């Protein structure tokens, strides 16, 4: 346990930690480009130079191991000079095309230039020119002029994605970052390189030139495209999601996430959204309708069906919605016909799994279904009963809140024909698909970024999502749906707040006991008996060495 | 047919036409005059090809616009009185002009023909009788529009006109006493004399206070600034003619300008010698230049004087701010009216004294 002094403050760190780590522990900001806490140390940018007493030259704090009795200075004139010089060097050939650079506004080079240098260029010769629009692969474009050759991206791909396609070639000011000829960077984690890039060299094709970053508002949420539940920030402006980036949480995903999760948001902005209620007429064509009218029809159908009314929930629904779903059928309708299909969604693109962040299970809240629905229906045989009743033509009312139901079930044909026999099929959905086409009534539902609630990760971690903006068009939140129907049935209702539902849920279901929204916070909290399952997220000192390159 | 009838018809047609034609001229004078007073150019754009006549075509363009506007009537306006009101304003103003002499009598084919439509022995009385009718038009307009603003404007206007009608009448009593006649032509003729051979014996010299009071009352009668209270954008919108548009509105406008002409003509006749060319009597003039030129000279003298007073109306409007309503009423009842009465008595006493002196000498 070495004890050292940095800028007059003493700190004790574990053996093997660097001066940089020690300074971070003290909250001292040392500028850096190549150093990334989750990657191996390269020490090539020279930005983090510090002055250590009894050592004549400045040392890079990211590579220097903290030692007993070290006295470190980070703000001496010598250090400041060094920082200015390093920045001047980095900017010698940097194009400074910030106005068209997507990184501008969140660019460490920009920020640190203003913080540590702010001096005009003394260069009188032409900058070296390199290709500015290199197509690295399906997701990424590279601007070789902007690159400061910190190799964060190279290290990320090698250390986490086992991908050695990216590297630097040539020497001196002709050094460029590139792939092997004819081999594109085609990796499902490739967009993390854009995140780690300290300049605007690597840009996401999806986000490129769409929006300046300072317009974006960040709403914390979690990714719902597989059971991993990576923590994310939804970056949006005026009801339009522009990109999704990981939100650091060492209990789930660290600073990483997969490209699939990043790019799946497009459906939120999509034109295929169910924008308003649809009602199927006599001629089997669906026409637009209003909520009031539709709720009236649903209420009529439910009154007619009595306790034979059935419902199918989805493992994509929040815990709160699942709880309200169960309570609505059990308490309000006195029906025992409600269930959720938790099997995986059928073959969709990108359905794969690895030992890093992608899980085969694409349901973000399967654990929630497993914990909550048995509270209302301990037998758990309702699904089969619903199918049988439907097949026999004896199902007067079925509410499906699982838009992927048909791709989820194994005997797809059997379900398809059974659903056609339901007298009143109500489907709540975000997108128009095969199932909504079959429905008598389609209800527009909010997408997950438009909802508030919690999800239960497969390992038992309960994580919150926040509402980024109000639901599009006439879409309503799933949680509010049951209340609307109950009101249409003439029951006495009151507005439901997700937090209130969760508090009730936590008091009724043992798994969630003791949890509350403040306790969950942004990082999530484990339910009873849960145990964190995370892959290796960091490549710091102490972890195994990278494979030789 | 008798020459007198023919002349009568001709006069009955020409004089109102002349009065009506003076409206565009006055409108033009008002607009360009006010513009020049305020360092502006005023309307000078209306044109027929390159001809703009210094903006004189604007009133004609206005007239065309007003004629072709939709004759709109508010739903709850009175179906008969609403359209009738504008006519009640214009017609009396025109009728008043009937007794104003434009020149001295002419002798044609052995007949002596007066140069007014009708020479009445009690012409002045007729004038006051007829011109008072226009108050009815304004009251009616305010009431028949079925609009709060109109009604308030109409009420205000009525109160104002009735108040000043009194002073208007009283202020000329003195003059009438001096002249001893109610015949406008006779009054004009009486002013052809001179004092000491140099100063024309115009009514204004014999009745300076009477003239001043008459002028003030005339401004109030014509609803002109500083007494234009029936209108008022900030408090009454457009007053009694808020609900009027197109030609109906222009008739109110016309009424206002014709009233201006009439009151100017009356002022001239009563206080400025009417058709008298200064220092030259009808007989002397006729002997020098012959009858047609004599009539022309007298008419031009009359027209010039009248035009000056019309201009005075305009001039004052663009010089003075308006009175507040209470100030208006106080001025009318507490200043003008008592002064008029005093004027009548003083004139009467002076005349009595003069007569007494003459009688004793």
């Amino acid at each position, binding site marked *: 346990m070495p004890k050292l002094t940095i800028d007059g403050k003493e700190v004790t760190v574990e053996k093997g930690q660097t001066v940089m780590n020690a300074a971070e522990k003290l909250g001292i900001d040392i500028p850096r480009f190549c150093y990334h806490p989750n990657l191996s140390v390269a020490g090539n940018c020279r930005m983090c130079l510090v002055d250590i007493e009894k050592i004549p030259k400045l040392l890079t704090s990211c590579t220097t191991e903290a030692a007993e009795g070290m006295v470190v200075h980070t703000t001496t004139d010598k250090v400041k000079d060094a920082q200015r010089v390093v920045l001047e060097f980095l900017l010698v050939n940097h194009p400074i095309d*910030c106005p*068209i650079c997507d990184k501008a506004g969140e660019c460490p080079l920009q920020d640190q230039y203003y913080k540590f240098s702010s001096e005009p260029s003394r260069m009188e010769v032409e900058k070296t020119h390199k290709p500015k629009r290199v197509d690295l692969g399906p997701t990424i474009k590279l601007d070789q002029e902007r690159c400061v050759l910190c190799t964060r991206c190279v290290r990320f791909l090698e250390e986490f994605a086992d991908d050695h396609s990216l590297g630097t070639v040539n020497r001196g000011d002709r050094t460029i970052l590139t792939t092997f000829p004819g081999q594109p960077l085609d990796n499902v984690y490739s967009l993390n390189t854009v995140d780690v890039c300290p300049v605007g060299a690597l840009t996401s094709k999806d986000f490129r*030139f769409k929006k*300046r970053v300072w*317009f974006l508002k960040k709403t914390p949420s979690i990714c719902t495209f597989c059971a991993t539940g990576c923590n994310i920030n939804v970056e949006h402006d005026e009801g339009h999601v522009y990109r999704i980036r990981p939100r650091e949480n060492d209990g789930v995903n660290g600073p990483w996430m997969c490209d699939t999760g990043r790019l799946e948001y497009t459906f939120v902005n999509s034109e295929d959204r169910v924008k308003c209620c649809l009602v199927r007429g006599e001629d089997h064509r669906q026409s637009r309708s209003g909520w009031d009218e539709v709720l009236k029809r649903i209420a009529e159908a439910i009154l007619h069906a009595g306790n034979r009314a059935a419902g199918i929930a989805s493992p994509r629904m929040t815990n709160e919605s699942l709880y309200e779903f169960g309570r609505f059928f059990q308490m309000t309708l006195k029906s025992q016909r409600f269930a959720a299909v938790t099997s995986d969604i059928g073959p969709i693109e990108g359905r794969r799994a690895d030992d890093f962040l992608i899980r085969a299970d694409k349901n973000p809240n399967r654990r929630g279904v497993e914990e909550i629905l048995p509270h209302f229906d301990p037998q758990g045989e309702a699904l089969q009963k619903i199918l049988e009743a439907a097949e026999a033509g004896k199902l007067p009312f079925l509410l499906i809140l699982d838009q992927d139901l048909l791709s989820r079930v194994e005997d797809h044909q059997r379900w398809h024909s059974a659903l056609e026999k339901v007298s009143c099929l109500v489907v709540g959905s975000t997108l128009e698909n095969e199932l909504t086409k079959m429905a008598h009534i389609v209800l527009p539902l909010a997408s997950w970024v438009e909802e508030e609630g919690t999800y239960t990760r497969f390992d038992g971690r309960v994580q919150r999502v926040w509402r980024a903006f109000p639901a599009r068009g006439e879409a309503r939140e799933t949680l509010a749906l049951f209340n609307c129907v109950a009101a249409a049935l003439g029951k006495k209702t009151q507005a439901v707040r997700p937090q209130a539902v969760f508090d009730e849920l936590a008091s009724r279901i043992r798994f969630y006991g003791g949890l509350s929204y403040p306790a969950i916070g942004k990082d999530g909290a484990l339910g009873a008996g849960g145990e964190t399952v995370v892959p290796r997220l960091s490549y710091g000192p102490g972890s195994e060495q990278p494979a030789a390159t | 047919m008798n020459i007198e009838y023919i002349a009568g018809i001709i006069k009955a047609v020409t004089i109102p036409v002349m009065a009506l034609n003076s409206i565009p001229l006055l409108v033009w004078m008002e607009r360009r005059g006010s513009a*020049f*007073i305020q*360092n502006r150019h005023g309307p000078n754009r209306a044109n027929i090809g390159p001809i703009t006549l210094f903006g004189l075509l604007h009133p004609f363009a206005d007239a065309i616009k007003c004629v072709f506007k939709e004759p709109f009537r508010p739903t709850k306006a009175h179906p008969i009185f609403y359209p009738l009101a504008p006519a009640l304003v214009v017609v009396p103003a025109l009728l008043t002009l009937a007794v104003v002499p434009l020149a001295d009598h002419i002798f044609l084919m052995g007949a002596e023909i007066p140069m007014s439509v009708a020479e009445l022995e009690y012409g002045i009385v007729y004038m006051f009788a007829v011109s008072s009718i226009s108050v009815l038009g304004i009251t009616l307009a305010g009431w028949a529009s079925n609009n709060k603003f109109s009604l308030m404007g109409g009420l205000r206007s009525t109160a104002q006109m009735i108040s000043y009608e009194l002073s208007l009448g009283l202020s000329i009593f003195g003059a009438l006493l001096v002249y001893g006649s109610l015949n406008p032509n006779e009054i004009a003729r009486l002013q052809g004399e001179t004092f000491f051979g140099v100063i024309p014996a115009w009514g204004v010299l014999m009745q300076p206070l009477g003239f001043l009071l008459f002028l003030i009352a005339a401004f109030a009668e014509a609803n002109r600034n500083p007494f234009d209270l029936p209108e008022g954008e900030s408090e009454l919108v457009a007053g009694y003619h808020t609900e009027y548009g197109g030609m109906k509105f222009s008739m109110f406008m016309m009424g206002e300008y014709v009233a201006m002409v009439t009151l100017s003509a009356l002022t001239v006749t009563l206080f400025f010698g009417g058709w008298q060319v200064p220092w030259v009597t009808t007989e002397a003039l006729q002997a020098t230049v012959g009858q047609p030129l004599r009539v022309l000279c007298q008419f031009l003298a009359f027209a010039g004087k009248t035009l000056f007073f019309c201009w005075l109306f305009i001039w004052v409007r663009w*010089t003075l701010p308006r009175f507040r309503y209470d100030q208006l009423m106080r001025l009318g009842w507490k200043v003008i009216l008592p002064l008029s009465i005093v004027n009548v008595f003083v004139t009467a006493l002076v005349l009595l004294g003069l007569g007494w002196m003459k009688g004793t000498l």
Partner: protein
Amino acid sequence: MSMDFKEQVYVVEIVKGLMITIRNLLRNMMNMRGMPTISYPEIMKAVAHRYRGRHRLTQKEDGMLKCTACMLCATACPAKCIQIEAKEGADGEAEKYPSLYNIDMLECVYCGLCVEACPCDAIRMDTGIHPPPADSREKFIYRIEDLTTYPEIKNPRDPV
């Protein structure tokens, strides 16, 4: 403020006032050209050098817009009246250029912050054109075509 008798009688004061207005009238009638009012559309007042007129988008010599769609103008705009959509240029063209550049002249407050914000001298307000009238909301939205159409610049102004 109390008035003395002469003032209370009004008549003298009124005559004084009348003299002032008639003096004005005569002076202006004698010298119509010397009047401070000008006949506006025919005679234009010289536009001050610093006058902020309708915007224009400047072009490079090859006719392409100088604008790189960096959106600094939209960021600086206090009225949020500038709407830009960026597009990636083909090889040999500008890397980033605006495929859509709309200014809503109804919202614009003519503050000129966009001009100050522009790092590329791509937007200027030196056309000397007064805020233009139009008869529908759509016509107030000036697109790239409108912003690159302007009469000859009489008073060119270098960016700040």
